[in-house]
């Protein structure tokens, strides 16, 4: 048997026949590929790739955009307007006087940002996200984010809690007027920066961290959480916002906020050892400073 195989020498007829059959098979394969491409295959693959680029865009959106525009694109008060309402899809281009499509408008704003208060319409700055302009994203990632946002157009979200962008001449509901800081609080702000808190947390005008929650209204948030059922069920023991802030720093695992833009908030992200690394006096000043953020006037 093996000898038969290794001494195999096709006869002339076999060669011509096998060659012809191969030739026909090659032509047939090319025709199958060509006919498939010219009828359905190209458009199917096109739809698949469009869909996958939307998936990629969703991931980038959740990582980078949901923090200000919300997971469902409903907008977050004081942070960013809705990107999924019919108002956004129907009126935005006209409102801002953009002379092209909504896609290019979203791409342009995402890439280059909107400088702070360049127009009376905007209270909040939109940072540039393109690598070339100092942001974190590549061009193709931003193109995918645009695809993801435009994917809301087929069924816009128009519920009551949508945060619309202000009309020209208006502004977002401003944050509470910053209280003038005492020298100790001023020092607390500097300690906030020098201890690297700004690497993860954002405070408008002070820090731009994107990993932890934003602290713009931490006093208000703290009061809300202390009163909540979730907090009472946790190991948290704070009764005042100051205590809540302190607990979050020295024992961050005591209570984890349940909802984050990407789903359930992960535990264990905040380092647990600040009680050892920050001197108590400094810690007091940082807490003193943070408790001014979002504190209603007069409290």
């Amino acid at each position, binding site marked *: 048997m093996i000898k038969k195989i290794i001494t195999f020498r096709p006869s*002339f007829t076999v060669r011509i026949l*096998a060659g012809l059959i191969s030739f026909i098979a090659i032509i047939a394969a090319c025709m199958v590929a060509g006919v498939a491409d010219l009828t359905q295959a190209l458009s199917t693959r096109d739809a698949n790739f469009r869909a996958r680029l939307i*998936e990629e865009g969703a991931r980038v959106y959740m990582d980078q955009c949901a923090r200000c525009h919300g997971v469902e694109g409903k907008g977050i008060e004081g942070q960013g307007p809705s990107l999924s309402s019919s108002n956004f899809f129907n009126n935005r281009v006209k409102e801002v006087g953009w002379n092209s499509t909504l896609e290019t408008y979203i791409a342009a704003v995402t890439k280059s940002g909107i400088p702070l208060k360049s127009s009376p319409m905007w209270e909040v700055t939109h940072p540039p996200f393109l690598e070339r302009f100092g942001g974190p994203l590549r061009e193709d990632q931003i193109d995918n984010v645009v695809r993801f946002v435009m994917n809301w157009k087929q069924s816009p979200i128009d519920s009551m809690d949508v945060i619309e962008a202000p009309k020209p001449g208006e502004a977002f509901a401003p944050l509470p007027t910053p209280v003038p800081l005492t020298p100790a609080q001023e020092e607390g702000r500097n300690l906030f920066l020098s201890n690297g808190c700004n690497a993860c947390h954002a405070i408008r005008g002070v820090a731009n961290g994107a990993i932890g929650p934003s602290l713009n209204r931490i006093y208000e948030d703290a009061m809300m959480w202390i009163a909540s059922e979730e907090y009472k069920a946790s190991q948290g023991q704070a009764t005042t916002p100051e205590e809540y802030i302190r607990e979050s720093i020295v024992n961050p695992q005591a209570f984890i906020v349940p909802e984050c833009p990407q789903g359930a908030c992960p535990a264990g992200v905040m380092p647990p050892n600040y009680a050892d690394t920050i001197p108590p006096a400094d810690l007091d000043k940082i807490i003193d400073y943070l408790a001014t953020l979002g504190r209603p006037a007069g409290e």
Partner: protein
Amino acid sequence: MSVIGKRLVDQVKSTGWKSTIAQRLDDGFTRFTAGLSWNDVRGVLRGDPAPKPNPRVKPHTEAFWFHIRPTFYHEAVTTLYPTFRLGLLSAVFFTIEIITGIFLMIFYTPSPERAYTNMIDILTNVPFGSFMRDMHRLGAEAMVIVVTLHMVRTFTTGSYKKPRQFTWFTGVVLLVVTLFLSFSGYLLPWDQLSFWAVTIGTSMADAAPVFGPTVNLLLRGAPDIGAGGLLRFYLMHVVLFPLIGIIFVAVHYYKVVRWGISLPPEMEPIGEDNARKVPPDKRVNFLPDIATNEIMYAGIAFAVLAISCVTWYSAPLETHANPLATPNHTVAPWYFYWLQGLLKIPHIIPILPGSIATALDQFFANVLGLTPKVFWGVIVGPLVFVLLFAVPYIDPNPSRRYGDRKIMLAFGGVFAALILYLSLAGIPTGVPVTGFGYVGGTPPSEVAQEFMPDEGEGALMTIPFDQMIVGEHAVRPDANVPDAPKLSRVLAEVYHSMERRKAAPDPLGQILNPEATATVKITQIQPDLKQISININFTDVNGIAQQFTKYKFIHKESGRAH
């Protein structure tokens, strides 16, 4: 009237119009085929025996394409053994690569901003684009295999011996060119697979002492792979290596004309080479026998490749290259697995007991600045090719007979076995029996990777969109979500995968604690977009409860479901 015109008139007068036209056409045809008239060619195509004197020899001396092919072979080398047509098939695949490569070049720009978009365009907007890319990719993989087998065959039959030492040398050059062609093409789609495979490959060069960083910088054009690196790899892929390849193929082919194909070892007197001393009754002429034979094998190879590409094979295209995110289980191309395996050898002299081997490593590191990685990956790795180049010059045995070459054949067998073993160790899950080379993550991340890999597809991602029932589903052996048979099946699969990892520790000794549980959560993001996440609750080695979460977005039209 001119002389030429007069001759024409004379010919018409003597033989008539029809005969003159036929005669003139045949003259032109004979000039085109460099010596074969129309009747000769018909004889060739019919398989007629050669007339005497044989006109079919003439193209071999007169014409370009036939002068790099011998006039005749010995009958004994025209059977399947001893060549298995592997050299011919290498050339066939090289040709297919050039044709399909030129097609792909039309639609490709070597720039990080455009390359990936171009790939999607080729797949979604260019008729035959996907077909050509599949052929190019599968042909390249086949070429690596065929060229390697060709070398194995040449080694086994001892065909590298005098007078074919230099043919062997050019052959090893062609093997290296094939590997580099394939490797340089890897980067061009600019997806995650290509980016990280090439990052690993060039990092190996970087580890070389003295010149390594310079070579790496020259290859990448910058400390990291970027626009410069892509352009360099593109130019290597479409200009440098094809050029070297074509030149060496020409030399290689010329050597076959000069020395013929070596006879089966047992047919030759020891130490002699009779491939060109063929008695007339043993000659098989190139035209028509060898030519039709080769066309047949080339046709079959081409047909198998084309049919594979329209039936089961489709070249992978992962997500856009992201220098900031390394996917789990990133690997070099499979033909460099053995090199990855070498890099995983823990000590310079690994067979010694652990403490002595460690002490020796210390000694080498202090005295020579030599780490195991540098020694095995960068010094021993390239030495393999030096060894291959040197084979004909270090083998003193004049005999080509198998019985006389037991040592060399055993050496070759051990070498092949070592390469296969190292290749096994080179894949992330390592050698199954010994565990050597295992570099997996923690058990929870491996469960997630199995069902939801960073790149490519896992079972959780191939659930049909309408079976992705929104909600949180516990992973259970008897999971039964209404209207979602595939989801239920995958939930059970995840359960069994977890149980497997609970029962048997992975080669790093990590184990999933027996109480570990998992859920699969599905949320609706947009009407046609869902998020699917796997959450594994386990207790880590320090006894602290942890949750491992991984998620993906799945679009209705993404075409993953099956």
